[in-house]
């Protein structure tokens, strides 16, 4: 089943964020807890862990692009 990952709010004042690094490449499998990406907000950089096991199908933003909180950033397939 295909599912989406959205940009989480990492602080009360965060409205947008940037993906500084995709830690999983398209086509790669990941397990629950594994770091998928590093996200930078106005205040800090946070690692985004996977909430379930999956395989990354598509990333919807490049590293460095500004993204609104809640927007989908990637599509994965549950495994």
């Amino acid at each position: 089943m295909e599912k989406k990952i959205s940009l989480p709010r990492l602080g009360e004042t965060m409205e947008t964020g940037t993906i500084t690094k995709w830690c999983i490449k398209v086509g790669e499998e990941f397990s629950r807890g594994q770091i998928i990406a590093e996200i930078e907000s106005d205040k800090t950089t946070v690692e985004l862990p996977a909430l379930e096991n999956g395989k990354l199908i598509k990333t919807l933003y490049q590293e460095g692009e500004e993204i609104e909180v809640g927007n989908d950033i990637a599509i994965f397939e549950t495994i």
Partner: protein
Amino acid sequence: MTQSNTLLPNLYTTMKRIRTFEERVGELFIKGETAGTMLHLSIGEELGPTCLGAAMQKQDTFTTHHRGHGIFIARGGDPKKMMAEIAGKKDGYCKGKGGSMHIADMKLGHLGANAIVGGGIPTVVGAGLSSKYLEEDKVSVAFFGDGAMQQGILYESMNMASLWKLPVVFCCINNQYGMGTKIDNAAGLKDFSKRAASFGLNTLHIDDLDIENAYVKSKEIIDKARKFEPGFIEVECYRFFGHARMDKSPYRSEEEEIKMRKSDPISYASNQMLKNKIMNEDEIKKINEKISIEMDEAMDFAINSPLNNQKEIFTDVYDESEPLPISVEERINKILS
């Protein structure tokens, strides 16, 4: 299994429960379900709370620092009520009004978590004095980090505990970092036991991953404290991740993190069980699965727990069993009459 064969599985289970709980707190945060973003996880630091928690007796009391989830789990905290507290929900230990850093439950001897560095330390001196005076046979343990080793209140507390011969143990969980400052840049003397010994306390320094040994040694210190010889225990460990959930620890190198995360008390205990044929891989996997389900349920419980009515902010502020103070008007009328 014989009694000696159940000790390590029990300690392993507690450590694994702490770690899995903390991982789920991380997920709760990513899901936007936590009240606030200051979540201090104790991943990598499970050994100290687990062995002291097991060595303490049912009636004993304790205080924790800001990174205290693991300590409360080791002392019997209910993951569901803890997770609900972290989510700021009605079913939390403090009805969601305390949050991650202010969980308390007098019934389980948890005298309160305290976000101020060293803040929970003097409380155990009072608890120790009370226990001794009332002959309650309760040892009170203060858990704090290496940052608190540089706080004056610790030394006032150690002195009073020693002077009045109180049933108190001071436990420093030295994870090497006070927020972003490495201990080398904060402490003049890193041999903390020497400082405690100078106050006349029994001391113990745990710096390896052998939790069975750590348990036996900590129990000796706690048992002596019960006989009014206060003690100090330092547990050296490594904070696997940043200070809080929002900190990616840019002040230390990735090489250091990769190297230090190999000092993992949970994999060490698991390997010991396999090596000594106490449990096989399947049995360990089963335990891990059960713990995973337990903590998933705790997370779901927190998400589904209702938010408080806004009026709740006015409750639990004053102890209603106490008589109300006399009003100023009443005082003046008394004087004038």
